[in-house]
């Protein structure tokens, strides 16, 4: 058994592995496993964070602290004391540790009726 033999054998084994693993996975794919795979990618949720009255003058600092805790900041709204953005769900708890955070809510969507509806 020379070096070429071992080289060839390892290539064959690697090739088999590359083919086998996806096939095994796809055989076993059910909707549950799909969710498992997707969750490992962790899509972010859009949130709004309100700041308490005592910290209304420190919006930029709070925004930075939220960012350090994992929030992607989209808007820092200083007149009303709200910071909007997105975050991975598993990092949500750490936001509550930021001093000055009052309420955190997930964002909701709004949809008007079609413009030719009777009721709008």
């Amino acid at each position, binding site marked *: 058994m020379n070096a070429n033999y071992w080289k060839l054998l390892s290539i064959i084994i690697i090739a088999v592995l590359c083919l086998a693993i996806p096939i095994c996975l796809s055989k076993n794919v059910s909707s549950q496993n799909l969710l498992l795979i997707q969750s490992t990618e962790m899509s972010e949720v859009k949130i709004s964070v309100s700041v308490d009255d005592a910290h209304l003058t420190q919006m930029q600092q709070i925004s930075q602290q939220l960012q350090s805790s994992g929030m992607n900041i989209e*808007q820092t709204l200083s007149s009303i004391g709200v910071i909007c953005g997105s975050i991975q769900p598993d990092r949500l708890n750490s936001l509550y540790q930021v001093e000055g955070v009052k*309420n955190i809510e997930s964002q909701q*969507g*709004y949809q008007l009726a*079609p413009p030719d509806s009777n009721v709008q």
Partner: protein
Amino acid sequence: MTNNLPIRPIQTTGRYLVLLPESDVRSGMSALTDFTGVRDTDMSVYSNLGVVVVSLDPDRLQSLNTAVAGDAPIIAAEPEQIMYAIGSSVSGEIVNYLQGYKDGVTNLADNLGNGNVALGEKVTPSIFTDGVATWGLQATNVVDSNYSGTGIKVAVLDTGLDLNHPDFAGRSITSQSFITGEEVQDLQGHGTHCIGTACGALNPPDPSSPMRYGIAHNAEIFVGKVLSNQGSGADEGILAGIDWAVTNGCQIISMSLGASASPGTPFSQIYEDIAQRALSQGTLIIAAAGNESNRPGVVNPVGRPANCPSIMAVAALDNQLGVSWYSNGSINPDGGAIDIAAPGGNAGQAPLPEIYSTWTTDLNAVQPPGALRYNSISGTSMATPHVAGIAALYAEATGKRGLELWALLMRDAQRLPLSSIDVGIGLVQAPI
């Protein structure tokens, strides 16, 4: 209440309630002494109220009237009346006393300087029809108002505005889009319709049909596009729009948008937080109660964010002042209340008609009905800008802002023989 007993004349005590200037009660008391001879020591003084109670001989009455009519620091005077506690059964004579007393108090209150705002004739529940002005402007007494919203900034957060619409030519318009990838230009129509109702022209320049449809015809218009040309939006854009309006000093924010709330759902704490902050900064937020109901069988809760206590939630009425069939109700406790009602139309069901206002004339509007100069539609979306426009008239007339402005709208609303769950305090009325 029964009214079987003979009605006696109002009973007075022989004393008089005299209203003096709150800021200078002492001058008022001196003047009272000068005119009537009554000494300080014979006056019962309520200095926090600026009211003095005095006994007066009938021959001194003319002197008192002269004092009230002249330049003296004496504002008004009324006979003191006898009051009774209200028992479990109220007789006709008691009702009469209370009515008389109420008239007296109302008279005093009117003299307290509420911006000299008078009310027009009481609007009786009858059938309103479009005429020189839309039925909505008639039912709310806007047609009799001398106010225009001059000096007041009204922000409408919606699908934008057709900036080329001829009816808005010459108006002060500030605009901002909060929809990524879209301009403020309204390609949907809803926003233009709402802005037309809230702030439309006094004399619309349409040669074919110059019916007035707008309320605060000289207000400064702030257009915040927080809903896309497809009518979609999210909290981020709406909150940014609110922040923009507050930062720009808008006294009124009108939001004809919402998401349905389930029975038992609490209101958003964040929207409540920002609404309170807006109020304290002099901005009143008015929002549509939502159209998820199907009366008489199905009444759904006020939607989000109108269900916040600090946001004024508007229900819709038809042209006979009945509740519109789709209009939501105060179902959820702890917030979720209907505050006030305004013309919204009955959406194709009798009684007609609907709410006529401007639409987008932009040929790029792809959804039906496409480009129109005007359109008639219904909804709590249409009721809301009626309240917003009238709020602007009050803001101009009285100088009041925030919660005080809220109180004026509630104070002067026409009470209706309908449940407050459905119409709140009643039909909004314009200051005359």
